[in-house]
Structure formats: C-alpha cells, structure tokens
C-alpha cells in the first residue's frame, strides 16, 4: 500500500549477507536480492509460444535419463534435420531449448552424450563455472578453463554444482555486470581486432549497454572445440557474419563430422543468437538482449530487471511496449508474421538440401566421377551450414529478419548449384 511505497523508494536493498567472489549458491545472493532471485528461480516454468518458448513433455525416467519432463523434440518437428545431420550425434537427439534452470541436467542427459564422448568444455555454457574454473586453476580463471576442457565430461562435471548463477553475470561486491567466460573474452577480442580495435578487454572496454548483451553472448553463440585440447573457440577472427565464419572454418580446414549418406565434410552451427542479433535492426538501434529478455519490472517503488529470462512474447507489454506504442496484440502479430514468413522459407531451404543429398547418393551409386561428387559435397557443406545457422538461431528469424531470409536464399542457391554440379 501507499505508505510502504513511500518507504521502499528510500531503501533499494538490505545487505543481509556478505557476498564474496566465491559465493556460488544463488540462494545466498537471494537473501540480499529476493526480487531478482524470485524471477531467477521461475526459469523452471515451461510455456509455449507459437514458435518458441518450450513445452513440457513427460517421459518415463530411466537410469541413463532420470528426467521426468523434457521439451519437445525438434527432430520430430522437422524430420529433414535427421537427413541434414546423418551420422552426427544431433540426429539422435535435439530438443527445443528451455529455461536456464534446466541447462545442466539437459546437457548431462541428452542422448548426444551416449552417441559420442563429450569433453569437459561443454560445461562452459551449461553450469556455473566461474568458481570451479578459479579453483581448478588455483585462482587463475584461464588456467582452470584450460584444465577442465580436455577432461572427459563425466569427470569434469564433478567439479560443478549449479546451472548458471548470479556470479556468472555479476560482480559479487559491486553487482556490476561482468564477463566470466574465457570463450567470450577471447572471441570478442578477436572480433574487435577484425574491426581494428586491438587488445580489446571486454570487462574494461565495453559500455554498460553493451554489457547488457555481452553477458548473454557468453553462451548464445556459435562455437567449436579447437585441437586435441578441446579448447572452446568462437570463430570470429574474420567477423560475425555467416560467410566470415564459414571462411574461418574453411581456412583452418575444420569439420564437425563426415556426412553418413554423402561423405561430405560437414559443419554444425549452434545457437548464433548473438551473431544474428548483431545483423538486425534492433542491434542497429542499440537494443540489447536484456532490454527484451529481461525487461524492467516495477516491484513496489523499485524498477528491477526481470530475472525470469524467457521469450519476450510471453510478456509483450513489458518487453516491447516500453519502446513501441502499438497494442500488445498488434506487436505479437508483427513478430509472428515475421517468424511465419521465416519458417516457410526455412522449409524451402531444408527441402532443397535434402534434394541435394538425394542427388549425391544417386550419383554415387551411378559411379559419377570424383571431381563432380567433391564439388557437390562442398556445396552441401555450405548449404547445410547456412540453413543450420538460421535454424539453430532460436528467434525464428526475429532477431534479424532480412539477414535471415538472405542466408536462406544463399543456402537454397548452394543446394541447387550442388545438384547442377553433378550433371553435365
């Protein structure tokens, strides 16, 4: 009531407990910041949107996978994906991603773990690794990172306890946003270097508004494991665009796997939300991830950031209307019509890719000469990486609609050129 409100506005928060650079348990932080904590724990909620969010799917727990609830399988939703990833772990299990609360268990129990042995590197983005890295490196974050990466996943995971927690994004003393992920610290420095900004130190050089995006870009990015040390690497040394990233992989002659049906040297793209966002209108306009996914919320007299990180389309009023005057219904409709146009074109691109795979198989059976087959396989590698880049990106085109359609157009072109290359 109103007295309280006049009260509150004078006292932002009470320091109940002392937080240090080693306080990992979010419940501890929650004692000082109950409002943010309440939001944080609600990332267990599972609610669908037309193209995103997540849907609770019940399953009978087994010893390998004790989870009683998971999210819908994208493989069943888009069967073409199995063909695209033939021979790769992703063709076994690939699900709609859900709230942060699940990140650790979903990684531990995905069938992809059985399909192929995974390294400790995986934990970088699925657990609170800041304190564990420091411990493993005797106080040196980078050393700990390098130490855990090569370990077998099962062994590495004994070093971590929580999914993402407060300390992964915040300095415990000042509460300032802070980048804790080696992968991003190195990756963004390379990307900036490509733009001519040398020796970029993100925690020193980034603006406050940039940090509202970078804390998310610690994980919502394309990546690969470099060399036998399985060092986590963000392939940004030539830039963030899809062609820059492909050029990088071609240069270092990297492949994620060999396609089971065609023998093509394949690449897998993963959640390039940051890279796609960077090509979009909102990024142009300086709108950060947090602006939409962690909108401000009034709690009494306080304005706090919504720590229930989720689809903005579940709270259009707070997420969009602060900037857009249109009604909530209208804004939802605008977003969905962008997504719908995108989804239809994505299907065209996936079908084109499947056509190419079919043609290569037929050509192989018919004993077509190696030269043409290799040319076609190179097209498959490109076409597959391009369509995967926008499909793995989780906004169904919203983060950068024109760029998304552009990439799909080029993917279609590569698939069809591959078919053409087999002929003549």
């Amino acid at each position: 009531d109103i007295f309280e409100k006049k009260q509150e506005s004078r006292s932002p928060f009470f320091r109940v407990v002392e937080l240090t650079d080693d306080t990992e348990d979010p419940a501890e932080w929650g004692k000082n910041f109950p409002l943010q904590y309440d939001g944080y724990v609600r990332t267990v909620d599972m609610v669908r949107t037309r193209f995103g969010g997540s849907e609770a799917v019940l399953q009978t727990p087994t010893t390998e996978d004790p989870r009683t609830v998971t999210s819908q399988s994208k493989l069943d939703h888009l069967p073409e994906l199995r063909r695209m990833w033939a021979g790769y772990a992703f063709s076994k299990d690939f699900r709609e991603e859900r709230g942060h609360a699940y990140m650790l268990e979903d990684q531990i129990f995905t069938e992809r773990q059985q399909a192929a042995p995974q390294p400790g590197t995986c934990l970088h983005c699925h657990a609170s690794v800041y304190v564990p890295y420091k411990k493993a490196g005797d106080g040196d974050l980078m050393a700990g990172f390098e130490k855990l990466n090569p370990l077998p996943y099962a062994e590495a995971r004994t070093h971590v306890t929580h999914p993402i927690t407060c300390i992964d994004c915040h300095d415990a003393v000042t509460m300032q946003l802070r980048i804790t992920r080696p992968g991003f610290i190195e990756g963004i420095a390379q990307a900036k270097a490509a733009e001519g900004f040398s020796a970029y130190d993100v925690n020193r050089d980034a603006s406050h508004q940039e940090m509202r995006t970078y804390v998310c870009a610690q994980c919502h990015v394309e990546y690969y494991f470099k060399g036998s040390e399985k060092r986590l690497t963000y392939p940004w040394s030539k830039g963030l665009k899809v062609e820059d990233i492909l050029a990088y992989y071609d240069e270092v002659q990297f492949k994620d796997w060999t396609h089971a049906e065609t023998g093509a040297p394949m690449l897998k793209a993963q959640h390039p939300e940051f890279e796609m966002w960077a090509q979009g209108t909102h990024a142009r306009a300086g709108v950060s991830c947090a602006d939409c996914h962690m909108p401000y919320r009034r709690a009494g007299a306080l304005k706090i950031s919504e720590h229930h990180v989720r689809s903005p389309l579940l709270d259009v009023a707070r997420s969009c209307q602060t900037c857009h005057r249109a009604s909530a219904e209208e804004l939802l409709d605008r977003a969905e019509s962008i997504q719908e146009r995108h989804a239809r074109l994505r299907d065209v691109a996936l079908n084109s890719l499947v056509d190419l795979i079919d043609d290569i198989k037929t050509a192989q059976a018919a004993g077509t000469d190696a030269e043409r087959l290799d040319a076609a396989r190179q097209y498959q590698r490109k076409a597959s990486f391009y369509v995967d880049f926008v499909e793995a990106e989780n906004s169904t085109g919203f983060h950068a609609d024109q760029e998304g359609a552009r990439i799909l157009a080029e993917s279609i072109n590569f698939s069809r050129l591959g078919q053409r290359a087999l002929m003549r």
Partner: protein
Amino acid sequence: MRRGHGAFIVVMVLFGGLIGLGAFTFVYADGASYMSSDARPCANCHVMRAQYEAWQKSSHREVAACNDCHAPHSSLAAKLAVKGLNGFNHSLAFTTGRFPEPIRITDFNRDVTEGACRHCHDAMVHAIDPVPEEEELSCVRCHVDVGHLH
C-alpha cells in the same frame, strides 16, 4: 469525440468521490495537485517520474506543463472534470497498484492531448488538418516525444 464528455465525467467524479479509499488517497497523494498547472505535483508519484524527468529535457519544458497537454482547454468545467477524473483514477490505481505497465495513455486522454496540441498550434496546422467529418489527424503519430520520451 473530444467534445461533450463533460457531464458524463462530472457524474463519474461525484460517484467516485463517494468511495472513501479513493477519496482518501486522492487527498493523501496530493490530489489537489491535479488542479494546478505546475508540473512538479505530477511527479509526486514515482510512477510519473519518468515522464517528469523526460519532460524537463523536452522541447516543451518552457512552454507547456503536464496539464497543458493532459487537461482540456475547451472549458473550465471540462478541465476540472477531467483533472478530477484522472486524479481519482490515478490515485485509486496507485493505491491498489492495479494498473498496466508500462503505463499507457487511455484513448480518452489521448484525445484530450490531441486537443491540447491544436489549442496551441492550430494556426500553424489547420492547413494540414482534415475536415472534422473525417477522423482526426493524429499529431502524436509523429510527434509522440514532444512532451517527453516514450
């Protein structure tokens, strides 16, 4: 549309006045401030602070205070009535904490504001303003930020 709501409003206000709580906060939260043409009183409410601070940076800072844009210029009666209605509504909303966020202007108050624009700028804009038969040309479609950012 803008015209002729006066009576209806007065009734609303009287009716509203009977609700003790509302009336109480109306006074407590400095409801009288609704009657002034000074901007500070509006900022009595923290929820109005964003607009207040933005208004201080706006092109209209020197020329128009809140009520110059948010209260009718047609007649004193309508002016007091609308101020009373809003004062009561906002007080009640503020007390119960039940209101949409971000706060959105109501169609009714947008009309009031559109009228305010014309009150001051009629001479300049009546060349571009269509005949009353047609739906109003909306000023804020383009000039939404003149009073404060959104």
